[in-house]
């Protein structure tokens, strides 16, 4: 039972991060029908930018409690600018091109970002300072650290804020209108270009938050960290129904749980035939399964509006 609860905690923490990143994919897809494969790299840049801010500040004697908010703030700002720049430079000129063109551009942007990170920060694994207390707390036999609680709470808060933005504000209404039909939205006086830029900016901000949280939790950051995380988050977005906000959250959480329980129990369930080396396979098995049996994802059909 203890193990079960612990795996549940592991899964929720992992899932919260997947959900945050998945939102970035799903928002862009909802509006443009484009899969922004560079999103994982934005997450990585967020983590490394925050580290670049935190390290000198820590050396200068800034109190521990301020480091994380400051790092987050700078990372979010940099990634917002980065998101807007990516959209403006790489995707806007291709807005009316065949769908394959922006997809390939996305992969190109991803490579550019990865190797820019190599040039700036090198290929080494960077140790992240301990920004949050590591002493874990016990809940029903399971252990959860402050960092993990912060991840789940912050991810939840950010997602709630996003839902509020999309459903309760003018910008959100413009986003939903653009998602439904850009041409008509334009006729109704919506500045479609601005809405699209805003979508990238918001998605990138969420990615930056996810990147910093992941690095704080595992206390390590490196230039390749965005790749696998991005693929998993993309899977989560498809699982929940790509283009659907609630779907990305549900998909992220589900995927985190599937991985935790999968890696934790498969060895014992199959008598050692399959082991935890199949962990990454679960995510992609889920992706294949969803694409075959329910291409629109879990929540893809039931909820009509997208953002």
């Amino acid at each position: 039972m203890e193990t079960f609860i612990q795996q549940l905690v592991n899964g929720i923490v992992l899932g919260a991060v997947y959900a945050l990143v998945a939102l970035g994919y799903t928002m862009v897809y909802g509006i443009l029908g484009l899969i922004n494969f560079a999103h994982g790299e934005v997450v990585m840049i967020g983590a490394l930018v925050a580290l670049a801010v935190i390290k000198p500040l820590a050396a200068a004697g800034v109190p521990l409690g301020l480091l994380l908010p400051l790092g987050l703030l700078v990372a979010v700002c940099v990634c917002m600018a980065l998101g807007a720049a990516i959209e403006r430079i790489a995707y806007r000129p291709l807005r009316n091109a065949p769908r394959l063109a922006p997809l390939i551009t996305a992969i190109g942007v991803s490579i550019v970002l990865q190797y820019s990170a190599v040039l700036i920060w090198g290929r080494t694994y960077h140790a992240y300072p301990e920004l949050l207390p590591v002493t874990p707390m016990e809940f029903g036999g399971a252990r959860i650290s402050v960092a993990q609680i912060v991840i789940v709470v912050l991810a939840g808060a950010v997602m709630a804020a996003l839902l509020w933005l999309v459903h309760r504000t003018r910008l959100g209404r413009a986003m939903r209108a653009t998602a439904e039909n850009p041409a008509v939205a334009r006729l109704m006086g919506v500045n479609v270009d601005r809405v699209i830029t805003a979508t990238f900016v918001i998605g990138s901000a969420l990615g930056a938050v996810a990147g910093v949280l992941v690095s704080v939790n595992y206390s390590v950051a490196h230039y390749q960290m965005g790749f696998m995380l991005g693929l998993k988050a993309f899977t989560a977005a498809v699982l929940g129904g790509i283009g659907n906000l609630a779907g990305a959250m549900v998909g992220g959480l589900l995927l985190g749980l599937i991985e935790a329980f999968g890696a934790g129990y498969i060895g014992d369930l199959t008598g050692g035939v399959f082991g935890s080396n199949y962990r990454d396979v679960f995510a992609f098995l889920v992706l294949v399964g969803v694409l075959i049996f329910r291409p629109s994802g879990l929540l893809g059909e039931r909820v009509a509006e997208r953002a």
Partner: protein
Amino acid sequence: MNTPFRLIALSAASVLVLAACGKQEAASGGDVVRIGMASPLTGPQSHIGQDIKNGALLGVEDLNAAGFEIGGKKVKFELVAEDDEANPSKATTVAQKLVDSKVAGVVGHFNSGASIPASKVYADAGIPQISPGSTNPRYTQQGYATTFRVVANDDQQGPAVARYAIDALKTKRVAVIDDSTSYGQGLANAFEATVKAAGVEVVSHEHTTDKDTDFAAILTNIKAKNPELVFFGGIDTQAGPMAKQMKALGITAKLMGGDGIQTPKLLELAGGAADGTIASIPGLPKDKMPGGQAFLDKFKKRFGVGVELFAPMGYDAVHVLAEAMKRAGSSEPAKYLPELKKTNYSGVIGPIAFDDKGDLKNGPITINVVKGGKWDVLETVIPGAAAPAAPAAK
């Protein structure tokens, strides 16, 4: 089915041999002997790769300064260093590049996953290869006459650290994790086989990858099985976060591993959670090597940084190659290779001799532990020696 490929390989090899012959004439005019060096000079393991390169470079400089003679003629050694990025496919490209630049011998690679595929390229070209750090047993078991190493392999390292777990720690229950690389799996399997043979219960064998940083799921599973020791076959970039996550999950078992985790990087990544981590490392402690202290000082003076780990092996590998050339009176690979097999050299790391596979005979292994944020020597094991487990004089 194999024939067309072998034909191509054969013809490629013969072209290379021809090319090498052409070069030989040119070389005898200029008296320059090129030694190849390949290791990860960039990437997560660049600190180790640079260390090997510096060691080899120092070796070449020392030989040149001493006016080394082959066949009665003074020669000048030149080091050709290449970056294999710890990547198997890059390793073969780099190996081909070294072969093409007519090196007489190669010091490298570091990673087993790089040394093994590269060894075929060198073997086809007939160029001797001495690895300073690859410990996977398979490296020397492929039947190539050109593969050598100056470190103990995992068949020696895995059992040595396993013996420590059994004899000194009296461990009864262990969990094993590997990182799915040839190094990590080789080490983990050698460890597992030894502890099993001694009646220790292996409660689970989990797997991760050399890119992952999230081990919560497998560690939770391991915690439920309550082992006294967790053995990890892999390197520091995973072991660091792993040590932290073990502590966070409240796992009291000790973390144990091989030379891949016995680095300063582990201390940096794991922080306080590294305390108590035990790791074996081929070779004697740096300052306990026969030529140790003098080498450390010379190295520091030349490069301004301390020795990380494998620089002495790189240094000795260069000398072993040069000595074999001297005895053969030629730097031609085909001529000095038989002499290389008969090596009996006393280097910085101690006596160097090869068995018939090219493995280091009686390579010593040191067991270390993290104490107060630093690696500390526990004891030294000499496999095959009559009285093993001689405690380190400390």
